[in-house]
């Protein structure tokens, strides 16, 4: 069966520090991968999606970047965090030919 992992689960970082969140998927090949952010009291905002290694599409201009160095690995990064980057970050995957997305457990990021 397929599983999706995210780490760390919780992160507290000072403003201006770098960020690296990692997401890995097991049990499937060539998945579509997604990064979402849920800000407090708001819905899910799609940040990036990837249909293959090295292929990244960005949905909104922002302080963050994403990379997909391996088929089942998706990384969310920032060179300098802002206070507004605080939120709950979710990674998701889907099988290319199907529509349903499956989410990881999320990372809670607090920028102080």
């Amino acid at each position: 069966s397929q599983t999706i992992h995210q780490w760390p689960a919780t992160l507290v970082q000072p403003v201006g520090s770098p960020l690296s969140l990692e997401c890995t998927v097991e049990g499937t090949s060539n998945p579509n991968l997604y990064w979402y952010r849920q800000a407090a009291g708001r819905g899910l905002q799609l940040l990036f999606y990837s249909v293959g290694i090295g292929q990244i599409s960005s949905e909104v201009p922002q302080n963050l970047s994403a990379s997909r160095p391996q088929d089942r690995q998706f990384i969310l990064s920032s060179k300098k965090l802002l206070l507004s980057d605080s939120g709950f970050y979710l990674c998701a995957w889907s099988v290319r030919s199907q529509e349903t997305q499956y989410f990881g457990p999320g990372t809670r990021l607090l920028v102080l």
Partner: protein
Amino acid sequence: DQQVKQNSPSLSVQEGRISILNCDYTNSMFDYFLWYKKYPAEGPTFLISISSIKDKNEDGRFTVFLNKSAKHLSLHIVPSQPGDSAVYFCAALYGQNFVFGPGTRLSVLP
């Protein structure tokens, strides 16, 4: 402009009664719709979906209804249980365009 709307931020229902969560969309290109359930500090979990060629899909206590002419879908939970208390997200999809609504917090009271 919000393409997927859930106009009720919260809903309270008595245990055993029906919960009805509503969702409206504006883009007629959406051809697949999903409902997710989310507990605090966890990722959303998929509940049920419906293709635009159908108007109803049922899975146990969960039924989703789609009214394409009104661009409206709803999730019915019968009977509601305290464990159903969570935030419910409606999502709409076409191609790679996957859009979530803002969510509705359901509280099922014992």
